[in-house]
């Protein structure tokens, strides 16, 4: 396994790309993955699809990772030039107060909340972005209604831990790059899909799965890490290895694929955690696309998801990449 993984996570996490505005991320990923694959294209929805042909006789395998991050959209501007926001994806007002953001135009702003006596008064209606404009006109010259912003913060590395905004799901994108680089001859045709609008609904994964007609799919995403005080009771922790999703609000693990993942992990001594989550994931739209796709979800546990300080453990990313590589070396025949 290369040391490039850390470098890639850092590079990808620094890219601006909220839902529906993934163009810069897509361009960087295209450049990074091109040396490892046979064909790269974009579909009409904005998904980036990279295809590595198989040696024949195998199956068509789809690996997805959504490449967008959460952010906020400019919805309204006050007479004083303060920009009021709507959330894009899992953007929470109470995580946003005091954070710096960058808009698509490159303009930087700081997020603040109208005066509140108590923390519970903080909500999206009161949250605004100050870009230093002194009038509505000046603000709109720099940020148009409909523009989006995302948190900006440098990535910090603390031994195995990485802290940065946007690790959901640039961490997953980095895992896919790692797999692409190290994928030696396999009988399977592998489609790497970096999907658009995974933070909202999610959307792009289903379109990618419809368009590529895979026999089997692996969704690579992040999941809540249950090892923080008063977290929802989920059996995941940082550093415990990638998590195999058994169920969420829109998906039941395909028994055959889940067994295969568990079997390969056991055989190869790769630690895997099991996860039952409450939200919805890209697996919902991927597994139901076209004629239906047997789908497994390999998640990377993340602490403080949706904040400017998302934290992952590099070992979990290595584990996810390793597991996927071993799976791609398997015949992937489902009984």
């Amino acid at each position: 396994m290369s040391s490039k993984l850390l470098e890639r996570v850092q590079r990808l996490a620094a890219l601006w790309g909220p839902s529906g505005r993934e163009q810069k991320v897509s361009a960087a990923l295209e450049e990074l993955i091109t040396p490892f694959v046979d064909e790269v294209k974009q579909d009409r929805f904005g998904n980036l699809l990279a295809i590595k042909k198989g040696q024949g006789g195998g199956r068509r395998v789809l690996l997805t990772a959504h490449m967008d991050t959460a952010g906020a959209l400019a919805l309204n501007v006050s007479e004083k030039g303060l920009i009021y926001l709507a959330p894009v994806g899992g953007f929470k007002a109470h995580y946003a107060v005091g954070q710096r953001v960058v808009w698509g135009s490159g303009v930087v702003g700081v997020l603040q909340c109208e005066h509140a006596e108590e923390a519970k008064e903080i909500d999206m209606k009161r949250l605004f972005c100050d870009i230093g404009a002194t009038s509505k006109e000046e603000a709109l010259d720099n940020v148009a209604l409909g523009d989006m912003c995302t948190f900006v913060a440098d990535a910090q590395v603390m031994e195995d831990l990485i802290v940065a905004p946007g690790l959901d799901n640039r961490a997953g994108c980095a895992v896919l790059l790692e797999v692409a680089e190290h994928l030696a001859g396999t009988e399977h045709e592998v489609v790497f899909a970096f999907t658009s609008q995974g933070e909202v609904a999610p959307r792009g994964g289903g379109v990618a799965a419809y368009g590529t007609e895979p026999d089997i799919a692996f969704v690579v995403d992040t999941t809540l890490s249950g090892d923080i005080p008063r977290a929802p009771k989920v059996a995941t922790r940082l550093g415990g290895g990638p998590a195999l999703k058994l169920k969420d609000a829109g998906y039941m693990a395909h028994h055959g694929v889940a067994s295969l993942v568990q079997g390969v992990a056991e055989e190869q001594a790769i630690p895997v955690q099991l996860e039952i989550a409450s939200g919805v994931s890209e697996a919902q739209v991927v597994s139901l696309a076209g004629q239906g796709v047997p789908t497994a979800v390999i998640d990377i546990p993340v602490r403080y998801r949706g904040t400017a300080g998302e934290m992952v453990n590099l070992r979990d990313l290595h584990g996810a990449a390793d597991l996927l590589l071993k799976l791609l070396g398997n015949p992937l025949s489902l009984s």
Partner: protein
Amino acid sequence: MLLERLSNACGVPGREDEVRAILKEVLADQVDELWSDPMGNLIVRKGSGPTKVMLDAHMDEVGFLIGDITAEGYVILKKIGGLDDRVLPGRQVWLTDRRIPGVLGAKAWHLTSADERSKVIPFDEMYVDLGCRNRAEVEALGIEPGEPAYFATTFEPFSEKVVKGKAFDDRVGCAVLARVLLEFDHPGITLYGAFTCQEEVGLRGARVAAYNLNPDVAIALEGTGSANVAGVDPFDSITNMGEGPVISLMDASGIPNKRVWDELVAVAQKHEIRYQHRRLTAGGTDAGGIALQRAGVPACTVSVPCRYIHTNAALCNLDDVEGAVQLVHRFLERVEKGDFRP
């Protein structure tokens, strides 16, 4: 006026027959092809150029289904689509497509306590009074559970520019789409007009239509909420009736395709069509459902701002309708000339 006929037509989700019949009659001789799909969407085609453009407007409206008939001869309704209990008591309604008149009854003012008068009557306590004395009399009128019910509202102009009617969401979109088809020719593209069903219950018809048509780009035409009215801070007005068609920013169903969105804004600016954005992200439109079909469809929503949407009496401004027609026409022109390639 076509909008008048469309507004006066009745069609809850799944019962869009009257609206479909009007559109068929108006469009049949003016398009190259016209058909209904198995779900009930009415599709028309004009031109056969290389780029396939889908314009969508949904035919259905919010309304009611008859849920039950009581032994005393009252009719109990179920809502279809988002309806506000505050505006319902006392409204005249039409039961079934035969428009049998009734009124949403409520206890007389004289009999209510001060406490009751300050509260909204819960919908499950409302009933329709047809003047019948028992269930048999109601049934004798041919009224059965499952039949639709509508606001009994007739279209009328309020002023030279402002008109009142029911179901502007989305008959105003149907009117814009029909006018684009009737008033302009874009032979260089394949233009599909999709008048869809069941939008108000989950963008259903449009998904099926887009799957079948597999367009290169799509625009959903809508009537959307507008609150430049008394008692609302202009900052919170969402959209302003009378200030031009609305180009959506984002809603719960989708994020407009950025290139299509940019193009619509550029077209509006170039042709000096006054436009605005919708400063609210709640709600959904057919564009969200269309965008996800097959391997993806670049889509955006253009709306006409309507005050009092989803009530018995909405208002809209004919200048905004005209602006929407012009905006869509100019967009199609760009696609036709190859200046915008989706």
